[in-house]
Structures are given as C-alpha cells and as structure tokens.
C-alpha cells in the first residue's frame, strides 16, 4: 500500500484552557504545562510538517491563546509555508494580540460557540463571562478582517439554538460555520447520557442544515457533523487512519487522531525522538489501523470498507474493548442492537427543548448542569 503524505496537522499547543466543556476532545489525562514543547521545538516541527507535505496547520489546544508565544508560533508556521488556522474559544485574545497575529500572517480563525446566549454558553463552558468576551473578540476579528469560521458545538441542551447560531455566523461575517454535533469520545463519553440529542432533534438538525445550505448558498458555507449514533453507518474517521492528518499533543507525542491515546496498547513516538517523516511513514501507531488489512468481519468483506474504514477505532475500543471491531454505531455490527438499547435507555425521559417551542427560548437555555462532568486539569 502506498502511503500518501498528510495534508493537515493539528498542533495541540497546550491542554490548558479557561473553559471546561464537558465534551472536550482532549484526553481524560491532560498534559501539564511543564511537559509542553517549547517555541523552538514547535518551530522545527512546523518545518518538518511542511517538508512532509502538510499544507494546513491547525493551532489548537486546550486554548492556544493560553500560550504566551502564540504570535511567535504563527510566525514560525508561516515561515515554514503552512496555511495557519487558529482554533480558539476567543478567551485570552485581546485586540492587541489579534493585531499581532494579523501581522504575523495568521490565515484564518475558527471560533468555537458553546451556545447562542450567555446563559447557555457560560453553563456549557463552565466559565462565567465567557460568552460576552467571545462576542467582543468576534467584533475585533471582523474589524481586522480575518476570515472566520464559527464552530457551533451542539448537543441535547443547545440544539434548539441552531437557527440562531446560523444567524450569528452571518451577522459576524463568517464565511463558514461548522455545525458539529458532539461525538462521544473522552470527556463526552463520560457525559453521553446528558448530552446525546434525541432522535427527533437529530432529524430536525439535519433538516435545518439542508434548508440553510440552500438559503445561504454563496453567503455561508455549512459543514455538518450529524449526531453520533443516529445514522446507519459510521463516520469515516480522520478520512481513514493515518491517511490524511496527524496530531501533535502538547508534550510532543504524535497521534493518528486526537483520541488515539484512549487505545492503551498503542505506542506513540515523540517529535523530540524522531522526525515527523519517520513517525508518519514508519511509526507503529500510524501503521496499526492503516488501510484494511487489520479488519475482521463484518468489515473485511463489506462493500463499504473503503468508504468508512469500519468507522472509528477509538469508539470501537471505548465501547467494545476491541479497536479492530466494527464501530458499533454501524448497523452491520453484531453489537449494534446492544448499543441502541443502551442509548435508548439513556434517552428515556430526556428533556430536550423543542425547536419552535415558544417556552424553549429563554427557559430552554437553563438546564441542570449537575449531571455533567466538566473537564479538569490537574494542578502541578
């Protein structure tokens, strides 16, 4: 099998973050600040990434603005010739810092949205005042003229805000919005029962997205990640393991996807020990689930195996304890019935504010957060 070079790299600069969203995509064991790579090492990794074939660099976290050297890192990324995208909650960005990032050549900003009202957003992020701050940052982004993508993360408690999120994206002058329904890994899996949308909500979201795509053609591009577990077939995770993208964790471990550390038998190389090229082409973790040779039935003889590569390896491991199993969200998985009955039980009696429900407006923005497990960073 010929291994193509990667197109995109996610640089998780830090796991530190002022927010503590209960669906955070960082691993349950967060990297401490003292283990983070320094500026020079990141700069070298960016050059190695460009030499390897990476075109798109996503500076992420945690909250990347928690790194004091963010501007230097953007400079280094642009020097390496990478298209540089900042994935941020906005917290920690000042007008002055944004101007510095502009001068450094930052190409694009992706701003996360935890809710369309302060009540919702601050409850989800566990950070009071965060929404107001974010709205201020969005204004500065617009004034400077950065291309903007709004990333609205949706779940049972805020899915009714989707129409407003689409309006907000247009008002902010965003060219794109990612409508991302929470996927159940790591922290989100801990909160699955509290966050999973109902079947009716998932269907309604798909309808709203389809209508908005038609109505906003040429104004707003909508990328949609539908609700996990509600479709017949699994998602083509990472476009196929080790086929198009890689992640570098704050401590320099190189991962095939952001959740890969949840598969305990995988060993990850570090950028401080080996070159990115060596790791991408020959690293054990990257070759573990590349292609289709690792597959068992029913994936092995499935006509969709090159379409979705059997779904998500991390999900197969998290739910079944076997990373080579068919992702159980697939209708062809022998465990699909078991998973469906589990999630149906979790959704039993779940309260979900309905779209278009007049009382859902403000009242729907207040929900019981005591059932959520917020992410926590251990103190040094």
């Amino acid at each position: 099998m010929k291994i193509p070079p990667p197109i995109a790299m996610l640089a998780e600069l830090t796991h530190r973050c002022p927010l503590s969203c209960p669906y955070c995509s960082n691993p349950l064991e967060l990297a401490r600040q003292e283990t983070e790579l320094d500026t020079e090492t990141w700069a070298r990794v960016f050059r190695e990434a460009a030499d390897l074939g990476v075109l798109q660099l996503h500076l992420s976290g945690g909250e990347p603005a928690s790194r004091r050297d963010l501007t230097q890192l953007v400079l280094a990324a642009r020097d390496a010739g990478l298209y540089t995208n900042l994935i941020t909650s906005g917290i920690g960005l000042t007008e002055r810092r944004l101007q510095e990032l502009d001068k450094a050549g930052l190409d694009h900003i992706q701003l996360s949205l935890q809710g369309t009202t302060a009540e919702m957003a601050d409850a989800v992020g566990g950070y009071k005042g965060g929404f107001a701050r974010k709205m201020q940052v969005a204004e500065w982004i617009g004034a400077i003229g950065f291309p903007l993508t709004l990333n609205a993360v949706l779940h049972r408690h805020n899915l009714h805000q989707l129409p407003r999120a689409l309006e907000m994206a247009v008002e902010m002058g965003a060219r794109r919005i990612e409508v991302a329904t929470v996927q159940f890994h790591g922290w989100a899996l801990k909160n699955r029962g509290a966050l999973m949308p109902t079947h009716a909500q998932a269907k309604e979201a798909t309808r709203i997205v389809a209508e908005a795509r038609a109505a906003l053609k040429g104004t707003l591009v909508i990328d949609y990640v539908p609700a996990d577990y509600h479709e017949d077939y699994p998602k083509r995770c990472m476009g196929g393991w080790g086929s198009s993208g890689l992640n570098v964790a704050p401590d320099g471990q190189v991962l095939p996807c952001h959740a890969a550390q949840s598969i305990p038998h995988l060993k990850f190389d570090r950028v401080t020990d080996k070159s990115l090229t060596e790791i991408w082409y020959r690293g054990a973790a990257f070759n573990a689930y590349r292609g289709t040779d690792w597959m068992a039935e029913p994936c092995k003889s499935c006509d969709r195996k090159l379409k979705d590569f059997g779904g998500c390896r991390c999900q197969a491991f998290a739910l079944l304890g076997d990373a080579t199993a068919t992702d159980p969200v697939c209708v062809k998985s022998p465990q699909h019935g078991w998973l469906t009955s589990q999630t149906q039980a979790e959704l039993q009696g779940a309260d979900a504010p309905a779209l278009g429900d007049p009382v859902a407006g403000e009242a729907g923005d207040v929900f019981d957060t005591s059932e959520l497990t917020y992410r926590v960073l251990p103190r040094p």
Partner: protein
Amino acid sequence: MTPDDVPFLPRGVRLHFDKVRDTWVLLAPERAITLDAVGHAILGEVDGTRSFGEIAQALAARYDAPVEQITGDSAGFLGALRDRRFLEVAP
C-alpha cells in the same frame, strides 16, 4: 459570472505550489484544492483588476481556443469556487 464581474481571491485564499506533490493547490480555510493545469491557468489570471471578460479573452488568445468555450468552462469553475466562498467578485 458576467463579463463585467471582476473576480478576486479574498483574504485567506491563496495559490500555493505544493513541492511535495509537485502540483499547484488553492489553499482556503480548512481546505486544500488540487488544481489541474486548466484551473491553475484560470486562477493565474485572476488579479482583482481585470474583468472576467478580459480574462476570458486573454486565455482564449494564449491557448488559441474559441472565447465562448473558454468563457463557459471558466465561468463554471469560478462559479463553483464562488459558491464555496473561495472567490469573490468586486462590488
């Protein structure tokens, strides 16, 4: 795309030569589009000053092709980029 439209690449969208894959690509927010020779030739003419009509004339002269055919092909290509917000037209 009408002949008077002046197309341009907005901030955050740029042409880039991909040395590793030996091809031109269009880099845009969270997207990288591989360009074939035709796509690269069309975008190479987009400078934010000349109109679509002028661009089609220039391409027709350079490639010794009927201007109607060039106009049709490039309008389709640029229109698709515009729908994805990778290309804009000066007001």
